[in-house]
């Protein structure tokens, strides 16, 4: 089922690829644009980097203090949390610029709004054969 939706997504709007832990994500669209909600529990604002380059939106989250802080003084009974690095990329439509993107971090959820714009897409330019 996942593949199906991914597939449609490719046809439609963007590609996506993933690295590291697969944190739970919602991607949905309404009349205002497309929203990505990526779960990043325990990550601080400083740990997260969102960038747009060559139409590819990349989210990169690395917990900086985690490994140093949870040191030998702790004895673990259960270690179920493991997301120390989250990296995901999505291909956006060519006319999206960084001005169309709003990012918010709230309660461990990274919310990225990609607003629809009404920019004119330049008509393809005909190249003459010499």
């Amino acid at each position, binding site marked *: 089922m*996942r593949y199906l*939706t*991914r597939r*449609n*997504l490719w046809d*439609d*709007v963007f590609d996506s690829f993933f690295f590291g832990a697969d944190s*739970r*994500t*919602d*991607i*949905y*669209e*309404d009349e205002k644009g*497309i*929203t990505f*909600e990526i*779960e*990043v*529990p*325990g*990550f*601080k604002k400083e740990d997260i980097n969102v960038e747009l380059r060559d139409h590819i939106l990349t989210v990169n989250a690395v917990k900086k203090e985690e490994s140093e802080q*949870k040191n030998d*003084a*702790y*004895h*673990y*009974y*259960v*270690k*179920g*949390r*493991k*997301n120390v690095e989250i990296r995901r990329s999505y291909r956006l439509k060519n006319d999206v610029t960084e001005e169309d993107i709003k990012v918010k971090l*709230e*309660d*461990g*959820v990274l919310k990225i709004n990609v607003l629809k714009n009404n920019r004119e897409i330049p008509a393809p330019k005909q190249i003459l054969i010499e």
Partner: protein
Amino acid sequence: MRFESTFDLLNKFFDGCCIEKDVAKTDIYEDDQAFYIDIEVPGVKKEAVNVKLDNGHLVIDVKADNEEAENEYRYYEKGRVNLIFTRKYKLPNGIDEGNIKVKLEDGVLAISISKPEKMLPKTILIE
């Protein structure tokens, strides 16, 4: 629903039941001073969480229901789930609500339970 035996490890201090491991990832650990339970609950607000001490058991209730929002949207991917679960941990004797601190920050519910005096490590003097 899955029943896990992970908590056999904890016979010494904790009993747990009805753990749905995949719903909310959890760390449980201790140091000399306290026990700690960290549960990932991304997107959950304070009002949706209820932690209480009931007859020697720590009961954690999370009820974050988000259904109404979903209908207006066209989904490309729906990986997030509504977090609704109850967890119960048996605590060592001698712990009352004064020992328990609960914090919700960045989508992580962090509970620390300071150890009662009799559980603290004692240094024995060499005569």
